[in-house]
């Protein structure tokens, strides 16, 4: 009864809103649903992002700005840290998302199998996702201390001389990446668990009738049918990895020297130094880089998903 009233009022309202929407007014999916979100998003995200293109071409001291064309970009690409930062960013993103896919899938398979303490294990794997990144960073910085740190002291007990995880230039970036995985693998696992559990049981029953082994089950059923979950994990962790900043900043600040600097931390350093134009130019560079990697990838993965 009330439903009918509401329906008609909805129609008249959306008609009144715009004559062009005459046909669409019948749609149960009205465009104005976009409106509130679009407003917030446009004002606080799109406008600053677009204006950043202008500001990236200025020498900007916060107190005044002067248009200097592409000079900032030239300087930015001459920044020695940027060139290595570029490699570091890609290494970091690939390592973290690769490990999250492999470990996440492995853990998800483990945690959906008959195993004692499954509830406890699920909880404990997921919990680090909830802890503050800064807190995790500070804690692991201390655990990874080369002399007093728990990790190296434990290794010393079994006779291994642990490296300076965060202080040795060749390990620093990877150590931070490992902590990133430690903190983030729970989310990947969760996504995979959701994906695996949603696989209809009939597949496994059919497989059982055919006498398939656990490995065959995994290879032929879980892996292909969990593919959407894999895409989600890859995309989320790749984006997270490319943009990653908090953890690196909390743990090494890009150091020692510039050996664990990623683009986001180079940008932040320029920003801190008061080179707002230069930093904004870096923002634009990062934006273009990430877009160049992630958009084609997501399009490719989406296509695959549709194919399935």
């Amino acid at each position, binding site marked *: 009864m009330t*439903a009918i009233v*509401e*329906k008609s009022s*909805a129609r008249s309202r959306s008609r009144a809103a715009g004559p062009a929407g005459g046909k669409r007014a019948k*749609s149960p*999916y009205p465009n104005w*649903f*976009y409106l509130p979100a679009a407003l*917030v*998003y446009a004002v*606080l*995200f799109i*406008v*600053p*992002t677009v204006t*950043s293109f202008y*500001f990236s071409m200025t020498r900007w001291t916060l107190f005044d700005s002067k248009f200097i064309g592409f000079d900032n970009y030239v300087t930015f690409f001459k920044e020695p840290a940027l060139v290595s930062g570029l490699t570091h960013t890609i290494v970091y993103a690939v390592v973290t998302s690769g490990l999250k896919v492999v470990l996440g899938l492995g853990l998800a*398979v*483990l945690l*959906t*199998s*008959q*195993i*004692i303490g499954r*509830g406890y*294990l*699920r*909880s404990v*794997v*997921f*919990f680090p996702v*909830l802890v*503050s*990144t*800064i*807190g995790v960073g*500070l*804690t692991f910085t201390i*655990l990874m*201390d080369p002399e007093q740190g*728990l990790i190296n*002291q434990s290794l010393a007990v079994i006779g291994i001389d642990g490296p300076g995880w965060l202080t040795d230039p060749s390990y620093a970036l990877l150590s931070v990446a490992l902590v990133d995985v430690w903190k983030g693998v729970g989310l990947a696992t*969760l*996504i995979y*668990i*959701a994906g*695996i*559990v949603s696989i209809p049981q009939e597949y496994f029953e059919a497989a059982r009738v055919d006498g398939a082994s*656990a490995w065959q*089950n*995994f290879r032929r059923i*879980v892996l292909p049918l969990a593919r959407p979950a894999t895409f989600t994990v890859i995309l989320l962790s790749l984006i997270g990895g490319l*943009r990653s900043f908090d953890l690196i900043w909390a743990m090494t600040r890009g150091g020692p020297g510039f050996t664990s600097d990623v683009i*986001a931390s180079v940008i932040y350093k320029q*920003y801190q130094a008061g080179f*707002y134009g230069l930093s*904004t130019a870096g923002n634009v560079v*990062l*934006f273009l880089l990430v877009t160049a990697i*992630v958009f084609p990838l997501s399009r490719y993965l989406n296509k695959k998903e549709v194919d399935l």
Partner: protein
Amino acid sequence: MTVVASSRRPRVLLSLVAILLSVVVFLVPFAFILLTAVKSRQEASQLDFSWPTQFQFVQNFADVVQARDYMLIIAFINSTILTVASVSILVVLAAMVAFVLQRRRTRWSGLINFLVLSGLIIPPAVVPTIWVLQKLGLFRTMPGLILIEVAFGLSFCILLFRAFISTIPRELDEAAVIDGAGPLRLFFRVILPLLRSVIITVVVVQSVTIFNDFTNPLYFLPGDQNATVQLTLYNFSSAYSTQYNLLFMDILLITIPPLLMFLFFNKRIVAGMTAGAVKG
């Protein structure tokens, strides 16, 4: 839920190895936080994994809470307001967008998808954002920061919602429309309740993200009286001298709300996600 294992017998050896590993990898760091948090300043500065010779839980707790004019309590209130308000707005707005975006393919869909994905990958430009907030008179206000968190969090939520809405059969919409439901009724009475399990996931993930956010409050809501909990870490981790026991007590205290949230929703996070997916 036996999925991969073809036998229904629990695998004892595998379980033991898994539990042992989980203790070493995941529990020891938390135990370290806990132990350091109750040590005295001198002992904590050793940074070793040892049983405290004297427990200073109460004193460290009091020191942390009282530091800088009860700043931690103010910070907890601020963080709660920020988290509750932004997450409520986020859930409603993102679900609305995701619903229409998933259901209706128009020539705009491509652009909207692009914008959504952009929001996920583009690092926000801090200074221009401050500039906009100022023009709006929202700089350094709680509503300003709430809207910032909403703007930066929308993309992720929309993507999650969209994925799960795609598992809700269109027939349900059609049935509701035939029953005479308008868009709002369809959305709020039919779709949103079906999303409940996903909403729990979104609420948990976003609450944690916003509660743990460090950078945005630092820039968009400066000032001690506006501090959020993550900023209190600064008090005990100054560059010149670090009081590790207080620092870790602080980490411990600000981990409690996510922990409670987790204990409360633990089962429903996974169950919720899977239930949402199974519906398809």
